[in-house]
């Protein structure tokens, strides 16, 4: 099928819809702001100022920004959950929560190929691969934990019914001290996640050359025409077999030859 001397023709696939991209960057911005202000709130800098205390409001601003970012983070998160039910198949909740054996097979394959660097069949996931998917699911749980602990700490100082809904959280931990500790520790998990996440985006872009980094900008990834056609045939065959179960994660095992560029 593949012409030995030609370079690949690439097929444009719209993977990340605009709402997903907006969610992603808003989320990234919120997390960045929350981490920076959170560090300040946790251990404020020693400032020396000759101005009156009444003329200063540094911690006040930090807290205000932290709380505003927290609200945006919360609503953005709720929106993303909603979009997991109405968005395209790459945005679907099925990418994050394992519902079938195939998901686990893919996890194993991704671990083998991308993490353990074993030799074998390369794989192609147009959207999230299974390891990324389940990682995001765990990260969503961290989001939830951070929202619960954060708003739990915030509830006592707020008159807003939404914030007050979290007033029960300190009762679970027996007070604010442990709650604060959890909130602080989970933030570190956010930092670790971000570092690994950004690295892996570069990794995929570097190794696969399908526009992984820019996909969160324009929404597109670029799939080799041959691979695309093969995926299409498989999808059609699957649809014939059982029209209900068509779809899924868009995961596909690709023979190594198909991914080789034309030049020998």
């Amino acid at each position, binding site marked *: 099928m593949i012409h030995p001397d030609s370079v690949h023709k690439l097929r444009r696939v719209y993977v990340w819809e605009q709402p997903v991209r907006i969610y992603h960057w808003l989320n990234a911005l919120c997390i960045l702001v929350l981490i920076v202000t959170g560090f300040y709130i946790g251990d404020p800098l020693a400032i020396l100022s000759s101005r009156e205390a009444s003329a200063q409001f540094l911690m006040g601003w930090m807290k205000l920004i932290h709380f505003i970012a927290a609200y945006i983070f919360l609503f953005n998160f709720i929106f993303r959950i909603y979009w997991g039910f109405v968005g395209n198949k790459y945005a679907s909740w099925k990418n994050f929560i394992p519902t079938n054996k195939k998901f686990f097979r893919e996890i194993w394959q991704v671990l083998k190929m991308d993490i353990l660097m074993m030799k074998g069949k390369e794989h192609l996931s147009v959207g999230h691969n299974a390891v990324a998917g389940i990682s995001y699911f765990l990260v969503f749980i961290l989001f939830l934990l951070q929202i619960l602990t954060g708003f739990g700490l915030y509830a006592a100082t707020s008159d807003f019914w939404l914030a007050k809904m979290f007033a029960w959280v300190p009762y679970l931990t027996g007070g604010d001290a442990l709650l604060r500790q959890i909130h602080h520790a989970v933030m*570190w998990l956010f930092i670790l996640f971000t570092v690994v996440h950004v690295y892996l985006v570069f990794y995929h872009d570097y190794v696969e050359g399908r526009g992984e980094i820019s996909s969160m900008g324009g929404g597109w990834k670029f799939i080799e025409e041959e691979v695309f056609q093969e995926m299409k045939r498989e999808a059609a065959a699957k649809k014939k077999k059982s029209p209900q179960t068509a779809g899924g994660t868009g995961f596909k095992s690709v023979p190594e030859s198909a991914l080789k560029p034309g030049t020998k």
Partner: protein
Amino acid sequence: MPTPIKEAPTYYDEVRRKGYSRREFMQFCTMLAAYMGLSQAGIAQIAKAMQQKTRLPVIWLHFQECTCCSESFIRSSHPMVADILLDQISLDYTETLMAASGFQAEEAMKNTMTKYKGEYILCVEGSVPTDADGVYCMIGGKTSLQILEEAAEGAKAIIAWGSCASNGCVQAAKPNPTSATPIHKLVHGKPVIKVPGCPPIGEVMAGVIVHVVTFGKIPELDGMGRPKAFYSKRVHDTCYRRPYYDAGLYVESFDDENAKKGYCLYKVGCKGPSTYNACGVTKWNNGTSFPIQSGHGCFGCSEANFWDNGRIYERASAFPGFGIESTADTVGKIALGVTAGAIGAHAIMTNIRKHKMITDLEKEGRKSEQDLENT
């Protein structure tokens, strides 16, 4: 014999008999209404109750404790608090203050328990050791648990005075050698009002009792069983040094210029931001001061497990399982270093193991570039 409970005199009668004027009585009612967070109508309600109701029978038990709660109580700011609540409320049994001793005292407690079954208020100061069948704290040949269970049986409500009875306090701190247990974990099916603090504020204690007397029911409690009127705000949120906190001006060490200026004690470990109590409002010693006002951070004494909640003079608390010197930040930084190392190793491995894929992509790209050049 301890004073037998007489039917007739009301609280007001007793107060007048003691020589207080009606004006002083009304001041007392007003003060307590304010502490309890009642509206102005509440003053009249308290006054009415005090004038119409007879003494509330109280049994006050002491287990694993230091009696600081009792000390705090008898030193509450308004003299009438001590008078009305110690003399007028019938303290039929309290080891510290009762006149009787030995068999007589035990008899008095028994009398109250039978005569006022289902009516008396059981106040408990101290935690109950449950290890080794409770031998760590025994009174009159009975273990604390036996005494508590007997007394709780016929109680209308139970007030757990102080951090010992509410949370276990110092004797329940790790490793809790006697298995000191707070009251709410031992008594079931009875309302338990927790009044934590080491000690709780005298006025708060008075407020809780007067609430029960006035309204005939226990005050509204939060999710942890504490009266909302006194424990719904953080010390931090009612602190007079809060403007310094918001301004970002902090004491860095206790002997610095900032400490002299009275800046916020946040960075020297003040636990005000995680402590729910009325200290910032009611204050101590007749409203004279409270720890933060005298230059020391809040200790967090009314919070559960406050002895194990972290260091007294630092913000950060030890991260469990990583030694007492490590905070969440230390663990986080190490984890970040390990992650960076793993990423570095992975990046190197990628360039070795995926070398062919990467160079193939590069070649493909270069070929397009050359094709473009050669047109």
